[in-house]
């Protein structure tokens, strides 16, 4: 923070903030424009939101420099690392909006829905560019508040409201923990800036050690909540099940990307001196997360709950990359999130398209015999399940490969072993979905939604998953070069 005096000088390099500015302005504009759009043409708001994401993505790609650039008196950093995360989140948001088209047509179809998505996106974009705890917290809360509302968007559905309330209460608790941890670190180092806190911790004497550790534990616990690391995952199944399905798709990808990216920044900038301590903490949590995610999912009958636990399992894998704490590990996290984005969005797109007697099917039984009616969707769902299970020639295999390779290289052979054994356990519930789709007889008539845009999303995700599975080199290179700015 260089010489912050009043009155503030106009921040230099403000163009770095251009993507965020576009998203913020468009979010507010959509809220207003929506009032003037007749009810049957509400899709225009959705396309405006998509357009703003596309423009923001184009701008993000153009403002990215070779190295880190800061603006807002050093409160905001733009480096390839943040840009890559932003592109991922913009892509996830576009998918989220497209997947919502059908749902919004049947529901109230209000522009505020897309406005909330954009605000959530804005929060995440700020978060990944944070250089200090204040920016991070602002972004995090903007994201969280928007997602709380999105989860409870079906006001007249009890399940949705209940999920939102649960998510909100637990989310507030975790924000409290996060702030509590930050306050400890501030108390010890008298700074919010990541780099300064990191230097102070490294140089700190032994009498501040306890306070530092308490701060670290609370901070990481608060962040673990946001990315569903066990034992802080409890909200995930309820929130996923209760939320409208497109929101579930959105929140199972974008906030996870943002959460892990900022987690990496915090670990690398703030806690290099505490590497041993947080590795111990994460190792236990990773094993627990893998166990919970892969075992509890077996018992689920509702596919959204199942995918919620599946997300927890995947988060366990991503944690391995953080434990490795090497460039390969961090690249592995990005590779995992990229591939995970396509797999999850593809699976949710099929779930959203599938209808039985006009009702969206959510139980595993509802998929019985799908391959006879719609072989194309069945194929995509099958591919996504095999990919999530980590079977080769599909992208999911390389995601697991990257993080496991990194964690073994870092010397944690046993963690790789535990993770891969749990992935074999988890394969059961994924191939069970394939069983319903391909082996079982049709029970009730299907009537699929025929939304062309969602169908396009299905096609794009499945092509991506297969293409990455066959030739993952470009994605791996991209993720590796995106580490500039982090390390």
């Amino acid at each position, binding site marked *: 923070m260089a010489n912050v005096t009043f009155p503030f000088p106009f921040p230099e390099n403000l163009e770095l903030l251009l993507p965020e500015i576009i998203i913020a302005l468009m979010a507010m504009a959509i809220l207003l424009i929506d009032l003037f759009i007749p009810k049957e043409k509400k899709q225009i708001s959705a396309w405006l939101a998509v357009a703003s994401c596309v423009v923001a993505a184009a701008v993000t790609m153009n403002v990215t420099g070779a190295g880190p650039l800061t603006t807002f008196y050093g409160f905001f950093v733009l480096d390839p690392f943040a840009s890559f995360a932003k592109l991922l989140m913009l892509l996830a948001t576009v998918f989220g909006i497209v997947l919502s088209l059908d749902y919004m047509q049947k529901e109230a179809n209000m522009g505020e829905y897309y406005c909330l998505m954009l605000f959530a996106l804005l929060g995440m974009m700020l978060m990944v560019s944070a250089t200090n705890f204040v920016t991070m917290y602002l972004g995090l809360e903007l994201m969280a508040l928007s997602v709380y509302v999105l989860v409870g968007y079906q006001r007249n559905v009890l399940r949705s409201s209940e999920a939102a309330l649960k998510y909100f209460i637990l989310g507030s608790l975790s924000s409290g923990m996060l702030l509590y941890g930050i306050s400890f670190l501030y108390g010890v180092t008298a700074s919010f800036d990541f780099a300064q806190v990191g230097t102070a911790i490294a140089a700190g004497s032994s009498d501040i050690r306890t306070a530092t550790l308490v701060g670290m534990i609370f901070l990481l616990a608060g962040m673990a909540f946001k990315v569903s690391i066990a034992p802080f995952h409890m909200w995930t199944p309820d929130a996923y099940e209760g939320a409208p399905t497109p929101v579930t798709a959105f929140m199972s990808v974008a906030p996870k990307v943002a959460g892990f990216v900022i987690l990496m920044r915090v670990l690398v900038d703030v806690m290099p001196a505490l590497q041993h301590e947080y590795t111990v903490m994460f190792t236990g949590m990773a094993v627990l997360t893998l166990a919970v995610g892969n075992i509890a999912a077996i018992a689920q009958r509702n596919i959204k709950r199942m995918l919620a636990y599946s997300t927890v399992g995947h988060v366990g894998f991503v944690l391995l990359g953080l434990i490795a704490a090497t460039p390969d590990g961090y*690249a592995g996290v990005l590779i995992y999130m990229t591939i995970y984005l396509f797999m999850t969005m593809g699976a949710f797109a099929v779930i959203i398209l599938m209808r039985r007697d006009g009702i969206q099917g959510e139980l595993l039984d509802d998929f019985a015999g799908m391959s006879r009616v719609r*072989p194309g969707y069945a194929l995509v769902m099958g591919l996504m399940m*095999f990919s999530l299970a980590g*079977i*080769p*020639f599909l992208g999911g*295999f*390389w995601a697991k*490969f990257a993080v*496991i*390779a990194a964690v*073994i*290289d870092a*010397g*944690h*052979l*046993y963690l*790789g*072993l535990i993770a*891969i*054994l749990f*992935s*074999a356990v988890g*394969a*059961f519930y994924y*191939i*069970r979905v*394939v*069983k319903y789709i*391909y*082996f079982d007889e049709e029970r009730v008539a299907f009537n699929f939604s025929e939304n062309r845009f969602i169908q396009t999303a299905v096609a794009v995700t499945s092509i991506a998953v297969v293409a990455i599975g066959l*030739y*993952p*080199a470009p994605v*791996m*290179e991209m993720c*590796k070069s995106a580490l500039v700015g982090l390390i």
Partner: protein
Amino acid sequence: MELHNVLGFPILTLSIFLPLAGAMFIWLFVHDDRLVRWLSLTVSVVTFLVTLPLATRFDNGTSHMQFEEFHPWIETFNINYQLGIDGISMPFIILTSMLTVICVISAWECIQSRVKEYMIAFLILETTLIGVFSALDSMLFYFFWEAMLIPMYLIIGIWGGKNRVYATIKFFLYTLAGSVLMLIALLAMHFKTGGSFSILAMMDYPFDFTWQFWIWIAFFIAFAVKVPMWPVHTWLPDAHTEAPTAGSVILAGILLKMGAYGFLRFSLPIAPDASQYFVPFMVALSLVAIVYISLVAMMQQDMKRLIAYSSIAHMGFVTLGTFMFTQQAVEGAIINMISHGFVAAALFLCVGVMYDRLHTREIADYGGVVNVMPVFAAVMMVFSMANVALPGASSFVGEIMVLVGTFAADPSQLDISAKWIAVAATISVVLSACYTLWMYKRVIMGDITKDSVKTMQDLSLREFSYFVPLILLVLWMGFYPVPVLDVMHESVAHLIEQATTSKLDAAAALVGTSHDLALH
């Protein structure tokens, strides 16, 4: 790096991806079932013809890899698209492409639902199988090895029998759980060897004994499940029984061989000292498979289950021969695998022929089939005799070589003489005669006691057509196995040299010079 490829064009790539390309074409453009059948047949026959030059242009005089290809695939991890075959892998590629043709023909009439998906699954399966046998990069190997699970899972699950869902999930989870440990071992070796996934580099790297020990265990779990060896064999009878005929053919003909091939390609040359160390263990398991599983086979009521157990027993011979480290025994093991590929495949086809007519696999539901199906009875006679390893059949060559090779071997790790092992293994020859001929007697011979049997029609020309090449091959290899043996002499000699040369001295010399990845 110099590539040995006498043909000058990427024939292995063509063999691997031709079936896949055919499958893609059928998936996208063909919608008529009749056309799908003819096209799949064309694709599989063309693939077979494409793989033939691998045999005709094969250089018997070298143990070096041939028809090599090398392209970077994932440079971040130094994973390469590295292909090449030697005398050990070449026969299996030909076997795969041949059995796929037979599978397509055998499914011509009995598969009536979802013909297109069925053919696509088989062609994709062929791609992965040829890929497994030609990969020289261990990640490429693993890639094909695991990808094989997807089409096989669907083949058993969609077109299988009553209990197919249980069988296919069991098959999938068993093999997946087995092979994930191999991935960990490959990754650990990758970092230990300084960043290479090449199988050839791993063969040359001197691992110390602790490393070899754990690598060997990880490989053993992966390959033993696939072979399958007692006690991890329980998925096989279920999978075999429930799979459609062609699924059983591929399963018995090729998939089981992947496990034994894994021992030959990975365990022996990469971890020679551990392989020596585990000889008593492997011998014990093989003998249990040979003797105990033969007894189990005798008690089966279901023909497919019986042949499945017989397969496990025959694979016991293969693992026994593999771990005897003599030229004769290892060659015998490989001959046994190829021969079993013909014989077990043909026996499953025989059961399939009967199943298509009466829709039952129970031995008790048949009897006196010879009266209505004389040609079929003769065909099945040939393969039953081959399964017993009667002289003149290919399996006789394999089994006698394993037995003689075992008899002559002198493994220092064993407390008892290898002669007793050979004697124990010989029991299986008697037992296999018991269960095979007893089944043949109950099913084919005697008077017709069931009315349903009277309605059975003899072999059609189509059915006869796929038995003919198998009969010829079984007899040819039984009478004149020299060409097949010539192909593998050099490669097996090289393998035995690798497997009997200790890496420990070189490993000891390396201590302190390499970057050590701690084993936690």
